[in-house]
């Protein structure tokens, strides 16, 4: 034994030290837990809620995924957890669980996916960015009832006009698939197109919903409100078009303002292919188009008001403005405005008061409160006292 003392000592120390390190780090693991404490209302409202937020301060930054019972710290996951994780997007994971065979090999582009009780549809554009190749739609349709998958590849019509085509929305209506896509023209500008795919005839027809004007020197763009994580059927697509022209160089001495050529919010009816302009002044747009939400035939437009959040309603079918609802918000005056999300006819507001984060869920139509609670950062360590929670997304 005596001969072995060196190797035994080294082995024992190594095992003890590495063992102690892992026991210590598993005990001290920075398990940040954000709990949702109920104040009033129905617990069911937060049953499936997913809140994405950052807890940060002091150059440290934790990206959190908060749900009712647990908090996942995305910036503090072990290597194995990271390697075995497919996606953190709830909609994608739900589809994966339900149709695990069909979902194989589908890139994680929720815009390309559509699902209702009869069909799951996936449409993606292949051949982007490659001039020598033709662009084609890669289409796969799963018939949920018969569990049969139909797949086909169809050419994108008039693809010579574009160097890139990006799928924004896929819908399935009466055995036809409608794909709404942004095409970036080989010359400047872009088009918002709708491609109608007839599955039986294997034919694609195309129609331009809106083409941005040709701009010599300036900027133009089409912004589509896409609910990133939604694969559900919908009837309307909301988008904003914007174009401006920079003043000609000779005039630049006078510091001319860019000339705005177009700045409109439009709503497109996917079923009937009708396009409608929304008549509203820039002030009425509130937080901007990204905060808008459509439920049924109503567009909800949130805006800041002195006592809280004011939500305007616009009925697309009747072209009429509805009653304004005001949702009171208690919020500490700070750098960040309260977080607002409109979804499924409800408004979610998370504000910040005294290191706590009140969460309010209310009905958009009646203005009634459905749930009130508080997000509380638990087991906060001393050095994390001044950390702040910033919410940037809610899914329910």
């Amino acid at each position, binding site marked *: 034994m005596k*001969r*072995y003392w*060196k*190797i035994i000592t*080294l*082995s024992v*120390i*190594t095992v*003890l*030290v*590495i063992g102690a*390190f*892992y026991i*210590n*780090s*598993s005990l*001290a*693991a*920075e398990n940040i837990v954000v709990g949702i404490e109920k104040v009033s209302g129905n617990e069911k409202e937060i049953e499936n809620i997913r809140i994405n937020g950052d807890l940060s301060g*002091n150059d440290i930054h934790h990206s959190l995924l908060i749900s009712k019972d647990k908090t996942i710290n995305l*910036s*503090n996951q*072990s*290597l*194995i957890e990271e*390697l*075995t*994780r*497919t996606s953190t997007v709830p909609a994608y994971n739900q589809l*994966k669980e339900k149709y*695990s065979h069909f979902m*194989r*090999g589908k*890139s994680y582009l929720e815009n390309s996916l559509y699902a209702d009780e009869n069909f799951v549809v996936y449409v993606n554009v292949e051949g982007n960015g490659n001039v020598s190749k033709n662009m084609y739609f890669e289409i796969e349709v799963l018939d949920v009832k018969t569990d049969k998958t139909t797949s086909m590849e169809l050419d994108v019509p008039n693809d010579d006009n574009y160097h890139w085509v990006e799928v924004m929305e896929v819908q399935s209506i009466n055995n036809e698939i409608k794909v709404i896509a942004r095409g970036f023209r080989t010359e400047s500008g872009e088009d918002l197109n709708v491609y109608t795919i007839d599955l039986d005839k294997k034919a694609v027809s195309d129609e331009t919903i809106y083409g941005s004007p040709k701009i010599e020197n300036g900027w133009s763009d089409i912004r589509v409100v896409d609910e990133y994580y939604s694969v559900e059927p919908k009837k309307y697509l909301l988008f904003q078009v914007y174009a401006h022209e920079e003043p000609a160089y000779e005039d630049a001495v006078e510091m001319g303002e860019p000339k705005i050529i177009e700045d409109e919010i439009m709503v497109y009816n996917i079923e009937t292919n009708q396009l409608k302009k929304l008549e509203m002044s820039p002030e009425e747009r509130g937080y901007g188009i990204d905060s808008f939400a459509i439920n049924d035939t109503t567009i909800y437009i949130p805006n800041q008001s002195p006592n809280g959040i004011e939500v305007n309603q616009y009925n697309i079918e009747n072209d009429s403005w509805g009653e304004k609802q005001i949702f009171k918000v208690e919020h500490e005056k700070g750098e960040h405005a309260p977080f607002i999300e409109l979804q499924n006819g409800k408004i979610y507001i998370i504000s910040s008061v005294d290191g706590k984060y009140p969460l309010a869920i209310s009905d958009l139509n009646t203005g009634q409160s459905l749930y009130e609670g508080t997000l509380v950062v638990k087991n906060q360590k001393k*050095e994390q006292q001044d950390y702040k929670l910033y919410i940037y997304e809610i899914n329910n």
Partner: protein
Amino acid sequence: MNRFLKLVNFEFSRFFKLYLVLVGITVLCQMVGVIFEARRYVGRANKAIYEDLLSKSDFISQYGTMSFFRFSETLWFLGPIMLAGVTLLIYVFFIWYRDWFGKNTFSYRLLVLPTARLNIYLAKATTVLLFVLGLIALQLLLVPAEMQIIKWLVPDELRTDFSIATISNHYYLGVLFPMTIADFILIYGVGIVAVCVVFTGILFERSYRLKGIFLGILYAAVSILVFFAPILVNELILRNYFYANELFYMELGTCLLTLAGAIWIGNYLMNKKIRV
């Protein structure tokens, strides 16, 4: 078993002195370094605050606070780690070639020992692993000591303290000290497989000499291909057919396959083809 342990101890003792030198350099360099860096920081703070009349908060917003992570980015800290890494990398080759190129016909004596020749191979691999883990443990002892020294030398308000567990969140230290014990086994397990593949590559060279260099490289390339086969097939042929977790378990499988291949071929070469 006893023969195997004897062989491990033998290999261990042969390198131990050099290993102690490596340990000494690491301790000395990091200890001197942490004291030097902490004092330099405090000196700069004093100069800024008393001579340039900066307020403490201004100084912090300009230079940042002193912390272990600040020290861990200096050459004082990284230098010894890199030195140890390079030394052990060379040692993976040295542990074989010195038996052939050393005094006398040492390799001959080693190969006629009354024990399975595979034991020699496994003993060398074990020794490398032991040395690597020893240095990891040393670093784990040094980090809290360095944190403590920073605490002594830098006043509270100029300092940010971290717990030792946070080194797993650091972008490169996190590779050496992963967050969970399972990650640790995964990373160092892959390391062992890599060492065994290199060992078998060396045995190819020792068996077939000049031709063996080519064979060894070919063998290593095939091993890498087998190791990454699930990922390559999934990306290039199956168009991402598999989900991440399925791919992970397949990778574990090919990892074990690569290891088994390395040891099996190594055993064959040592028993049938090796030249002294």
